[in-house]
């Protein structure tokens, strides 16, 4: 049995530090999700409006955010902000900004899809019944779309948690970075730490995301 370097995890506070790193990752993704949901709903509603200009702008925003790798967006905000505003913003703030921009785009598209899946006659009927357009959205459209949206947004959360692993590239100390530090610090005493520690990180991400994936699948089956 080769030395798998798992002993490092039980030295000192290493395991707690890893979990703390995971906490940072979760904090970033949850903050971004909480911001993206209202913004995404707003974007989705804007995207189905009839005004061409609004549609063109929102469409362009969505396509750009979607086609760029998230890491490129992180670089643009993290390195670009210093150039554009002359002041540095922290890696953590940059990642919250990027994940919110990205989450808003994804959420907006989901909302748009959910809204246009509602047949047109429902809008017409509610108009015929004398409801204002705000009332139509509030009482007719939103309740129906929410059911469709919840499983999809849970999926979006898991994608965000997975994507937070990228923030180490702009210097945020999250779980993978902590893992690197632990491996580096114990290089002499346990040279095989890379195996055990990265395996642990791998499993930590799995433990964070898997229940959410199962929940999304369950909800999709239940409401789908």
């Amino acid at each position: 049995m080769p030395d798998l370097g798992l002993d490092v995890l039980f030295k000192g506070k290493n395991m707690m530090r890893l979990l703390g790193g995971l906490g940072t990752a979760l904090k970033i993704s949850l903050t971004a999700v909480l911001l993206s949901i209202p913004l995404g709903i707003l974007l989705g509603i804007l995207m189905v409006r009839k005004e061409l200009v609004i549609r063109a702008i929102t469409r362009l925003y969505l396509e750009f955010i979607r086609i760029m790798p998230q890491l490129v967006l992180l670089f643009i905000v993290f390195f670009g902000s210093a150039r554009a505003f002359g002041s540095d913003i922290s890696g953590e703030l940059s990642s919250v900004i990027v994940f919110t921009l990205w989450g808003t785009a994804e959420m907006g598209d989901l909302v748009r899809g959910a809204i246009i899946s509602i047949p047109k006659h429902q809008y017409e009927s509610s108009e015929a019944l004398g409801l204002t357009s705000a009332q139509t959205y509030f009482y007719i459209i939103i309740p129906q779309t929410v059911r469709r949206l919840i499983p999809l947004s849970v999926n979006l959360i898991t994608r965000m948690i997975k994507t937070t692993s990228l923030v180490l590239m702009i210097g945020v100390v999250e779980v993978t970075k902590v893992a690197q530090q632990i491996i580096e610090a114990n290089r002499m005493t346990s040279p095989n730490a890379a195996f055990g520690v990265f395996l642990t990180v791998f499993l930590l991400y799995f433990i964070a995301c898997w229940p959410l994936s199962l929940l999304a699948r369950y909800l999709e089956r239940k409401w789908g």
Partner: protein
Amino acid sequence: MNTEFIFKYLPLYEKAAVLTLRIGVEGIIIAILLGIICALIQYGKVPIIRRIVSVYIELSRNTPLLVQLFFIYYGLPKIGISTNAEVCGAIGLGFLGGSYMAEAIRSGLETIEPIQAESALSLGLKPAQVMRYVILPQAVSVSMPAFMANIIFLLKETSVFSAISLMDLMFTAKDLIGLYYKTTESLFMLVVFYLIILLPVSLLGRFIERRLRYAGFGT
């Protein structure tokens, strides 16, 4: 914006883009093959192996590529399995993409109701013919949108390769920012090169999706 700088370092970006594309394509080929195998195992309900496949799919879908790459690149050599960075990138991408491709293909196969295969068999078609003429044409058109979306997703994921010290586009951009402080130019080139790689694939995906839509009974 300093155009002189851009033209001077254009070859660096070109080289990086070729590397990104090469590993991306290798990884995607591995992903497609792995996906087909896994989807067939699940569709055919092969005992035991099927369990292994579903464990693999859950593991690969619920963990980030960066962590998978770190494990393959830094972790596995410690137990005697070492590879170079490029092979590692392609394998990592294949490992991640295999599960996404499997899901896309399987969902296509599963939308075809068993009654169609049964009817075809009772008409005297051989199992291979049932697959070729009845199931595949319909399954492909159902799977195609997810399939193309996965290809774009995997090409985007290649951006993390710089973490295992491959000289890809991200690496080049970060390097130039660090060396010359030409942030605007470096980031601009980065965006342009990713657009050059991703836009055609995205447009192709949309085109294919439109062409294949007829098979899906009005959906």
